[in-house]
């Protein structure tokens, strides 16, 4: 298996502080593989995806580490080459379909922009491709949707458009940043199935960010469990569910509610586990500061 995305020892801080948001994160995503990135909110899951795609907030600074996309070190490239590399090879399925589409532009233009500007397609080809893609994401009347503004579409519809848009340029890596979180449960399942379908058809490497272990079990082959910006466990999904290695992972598994017994199964992660992980992280931080 060839590795398409390789994150090596990546650390990030808030500009001007000494506290790390990402703590020496390393992970690989192979071609055709879906890698789940799980953790509580605030653990830095989305931050990793944003670091790869170069859309970190201005206040966050990467202090060490490498990101290699298709063998090329992203941080060693000049900004223009990096922009082109990401534009042609990677794509993002964002979390919130409400804000991820430009409210004052038509859907069609938003999908075709990248094809025309970055890949150099003709407008005509790009428009045809956009219509095809909408059919691929099971939108029955692509022409109408392409001519619509985002506010004319429902949330589920917009997420479909965003998925189509992500796969438009045949990217080899797609980063899905909690793509189902903003949707209601019935739509979530369809969207998840759709992402899986497209990922299989295109053989894309995918980094799937979520807080939902249930989702991971359905879509991912490997996963990383993140706590406070540090990967505490990395494993194959099958192995992870039968035998999670880290105490925190076990606690997370227990905390996942079961639909059959929603009230009794809803358990917070145990305090002792949290303090154990926190200690582990503080030790790592001391070592990092010393180095």
């Amino acid at each position, binding site marked *: 298996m060839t590795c398409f995305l390789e994150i090596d020892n990546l650390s990030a801080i808030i500009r001007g502080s000494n506290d790390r948001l990402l703590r020496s994160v390393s992970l690989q995503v192979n071609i055709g593989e879906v890698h789940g990135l799980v953790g509580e909110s605030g653990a830095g899951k989305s931050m990793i995806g*944003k670091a790869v*795609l*170069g*859309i970190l907030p*201005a206040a966050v600074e990467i202090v060490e580490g490498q990101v290699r996309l298709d063998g090329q070190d992203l941080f060693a490239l000049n900004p223009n080459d990096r*922009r*082109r590399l*990401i*534009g*042609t090879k*990677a*794509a*993002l399925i*964002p*979390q*919130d379909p409400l*804000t*991820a*589409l*430009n*409210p*004052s*532009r038509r859907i069609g233009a*938003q999908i075709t*922009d*990248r094809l025309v*500007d*970055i890949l150099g397609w003709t407008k005509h080809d790009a428009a045809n491709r956009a219509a095809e893609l909408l059919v691929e994401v099971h939108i029955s009347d692509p022409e109408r949707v392409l001519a619509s*503004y985002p*506010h004319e579409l429902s949330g589920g519809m917009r997420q479909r458009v*965003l998925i189509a*848009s992500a796969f438009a*340029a045949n990217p080899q890596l797609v980063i899905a940043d909690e793509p189902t979180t903003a949707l209601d449960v019935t739509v979530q399942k369809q969207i998840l199935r759709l992402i899986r379908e497209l990922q299989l058809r295109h053989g894309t490497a995918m980094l799937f960010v979520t807080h939902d272990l249930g989702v991971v079990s359905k879509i991912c082959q490997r996963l990383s469990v993140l706590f406070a910006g540090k990967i505490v466990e990395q494993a194959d999904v099958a192995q992870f569910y039968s035998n999670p290695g880290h105490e925190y992972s076990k606690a997370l598994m227990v905390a996942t509610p079961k639909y059959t017994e929603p009230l009794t199964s809803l358990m917070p992660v145990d305090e002792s586990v949290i303090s154990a992980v926190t200690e582990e992280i503080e030790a790592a931080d001391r070592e990092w500061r010393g180095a």
Partner: protein
Amino acid sequence: MRDARGTVRRKAGLKLWLSGGWLALIALLTLAAGWVSPHDPLAQDLFAGRLPPFWVDGAEPGYLLGTDSLGRDVLSRIIYGGRVALGVALIAGVSTAIVGSVLGLIAGYYRGWADAVISRLVDIWMAFPPVLFAILLIAVLGTGLWSIIIAIIVIDWTRFCRVVRAETMNQSQMDYVSSAVVAGHVRTAILWREIGPNVLPTIVALLTLEMGIAVIVEAILSFVNLSISTDAPTWGGMIAEGRISIHQAWWVLVCPLIVLFLTVLAFSQFGEGLKDRFDPVLR
């Protein structure tokens, strides 16, 4: 929800129609001034001095809004004065909007040193008292319409710059901008194509407000005789002249004042109406 939204839209529609209608009327009258104005605005007729408007006893049928102390027709002078007012509003308003918005977009999107320079400049600029600044500028540039227009641009670009910068920063945080970055677009393309259209409603609303302000500034400067030559009709000049004969002929002051007031009001309401109508989120 639907009802509430419906109400908002109907109100916006009425506001838009009333203010737009008034502005269109003034614009048409001034464009066709040569045909529609009943008299030559400069022609004096000392035997027909201080004739009252048509609803007051003693009015002459040819002079709808009466005459001033030199016997010049008030209506004709208002129509010709509208040329100056609207001309200044249009040219000064649009130029100010372009200068201020471009600087605001650049400062808000690129941040860094460009923002530092532009923002400091705005701060310093806004510390000058605007009316004194205007009079000073006119003193340097000489009186005349172009001086007024240049003075308005030089003084008021900060108004656009500040607001557009803030709105641009706001829009830059949006996910759709991140998506465009990931898609590999260059920054200038993102600024003009993605952010620009979303800042436009704000610019349009400010522009109409600015046009109203330009009308007032022109009136003030012609009131203090810093506009075009004294006998040429301007609303501000008419008000200044009417002030002298207020006890004998109030209409010379009141008529241009009402037109001025309604025009400025119409500009601001028109902007509000447009914003309500074309704001993609409200729509």
